[in-house]
């Protein structure tokens, strides 16, 4: 699961686009902002799963 963020951001061809925009912010920029939060969320889920098992 922790590998998902790697797949999401390590190939810029996936997201080096201008559109769609949100509030005038290019896709390239807001996609990466979104992944900062998503990646932190994934780490959080892994953390919870790890300690629930105990």
């Amino acid at each position: 699961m922790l590998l998902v963020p790697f797949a999401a951001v390590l190939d810029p061809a996936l997201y080096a686009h201008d559109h769609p925009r949100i509030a005038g912010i290019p896709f390239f920029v807001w996609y990466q902002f979104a992944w900062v939060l998503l990646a932190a969320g994934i780490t959080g889920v892994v953390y919870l799963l790890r300690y629930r098992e105990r």
Partner: protein
Amino acid sequence: MEIAVFVFLFALITAVGLFAGRWRAGDLSQLDEWALGGRRFGSFVTWFLQGGSIYTTYAFIAIPALVYGSGAIGFFALAYLIVAYPVAFVCLPPLWRVSHERGHVTVSDFVKERFSSTTLATLVALTGIVATLPYLALQVYGIQVSIAELGVPVEVSLTLAFVILAGITYVSGLRSAALIAIVKDVLIWITVLVAVIYIPIRLGGYSHVFAQIGPAKRNLHPSEFAGYSTLALGSGLALFLYPHTITGSLSSSSDRVIERNCVFLPLYTIMLGLLAILGYMAIVAGVHPTAAYGDNSVIPALFQKMFPPAFAGFALAAISIGALVPASIMAIAAGNLFSRNIYRELVTHPPSPATETRISKLTSLTVKIGAVAFILAVPSTYVVNFQLAGGVWILQTLPAAFLALFCPWLDRLATIVGWVAGMALGTYLLVDTSFQSSTYAFDVLGIRARLFIGLVALGVNLAVVLTGSALSSLLGGRRRRPLTAQGPTASPT
């Protein structure tokens, strides 16, 4: 007015730093106490401390300058921090557990015991110190750029900033860095939030800002893709190998604190992204970089131009204090490496804990004097370039520091030879670009692509380490007892 606010804030943090020695007081002549704050920092303090050691002048000055000068490539900083935390989440907790159980203060302590090799430990320690020095110099440079924007004579104010930094670090150690980190964060967050709301309002909104930026700077060119992703991956792997980020982690009170922080630290990454966008705003606002500091002066110049004087003073003080915290942690980390892993090996009798702490303190002081001298003597463009070189070098310690945690079969000799190969190739390629770039044009399967030098060197390094280790176990090399913590939280998941 600007200067008054600036001076007031600096006086405030000096008082905080000197007071810090009494906070949760321990015996400051012990290295654990001075250098790791007694390993008692909980989630809250560790969050500030790690935030203070990861998000540095590099984020406040160099990244926005890169966006201002070169455009979208500067956003690799977001991608690299996105991948850095999963790496930290996997590697740092096991390192913390071993270090806690065996009393390691530096990563070289771990390497020395894991490989039973003083040579490898010394190599890792030297790499750490050499990679940290330009990073530390970059922090001092950040303070210099901010002060210069206020129009104060640079030599005088730099000396003053240095005395403050050296004084509080020497007296209170990591505790002062931790307390100042809290104050610094309040100042920085206020500055960034005001900047990303107030400046776009004055410039006509975000869509207007982005509309003013040409497509070439607003987006990556396909030829930049390979450089972007290798820089992001390489920097992401390197981030938590730096002695100062490891010091921040080892000072926490448990491995779970580190894991939780990997979830919450990315909040700072949002801040870094917002700062990167300020690089675009500087273009739209028509800020002109100064001749002396080039693109690196655009953020201080933007604040100076857009904010009322009192708040500009506040913002510039925030950036300077934001550089003091990592500078202090870096100096402490370099001091520890020297006293534990170099000085100790040079003397015949193991030094007493008190002597060790004294050597650490003196080294951290020397390192800071070195950084200021470096800044005053060397042209500023080199400061940033040597910092990039530091990233290439520190990455070569990955097999010894991280891989060794998970692979009990890693061979000592193979790891040493891998390090030599990685360092040699990395340095050769850096020299070939005259230290002007951290990427290098390679021909891969007929396609010409610019790749991050550090990652290429790490590839060669890993190839040597893995082949060598495989050969050694085939030839019946001694199997090594894996060095992992035995405590109740240590069971693998």
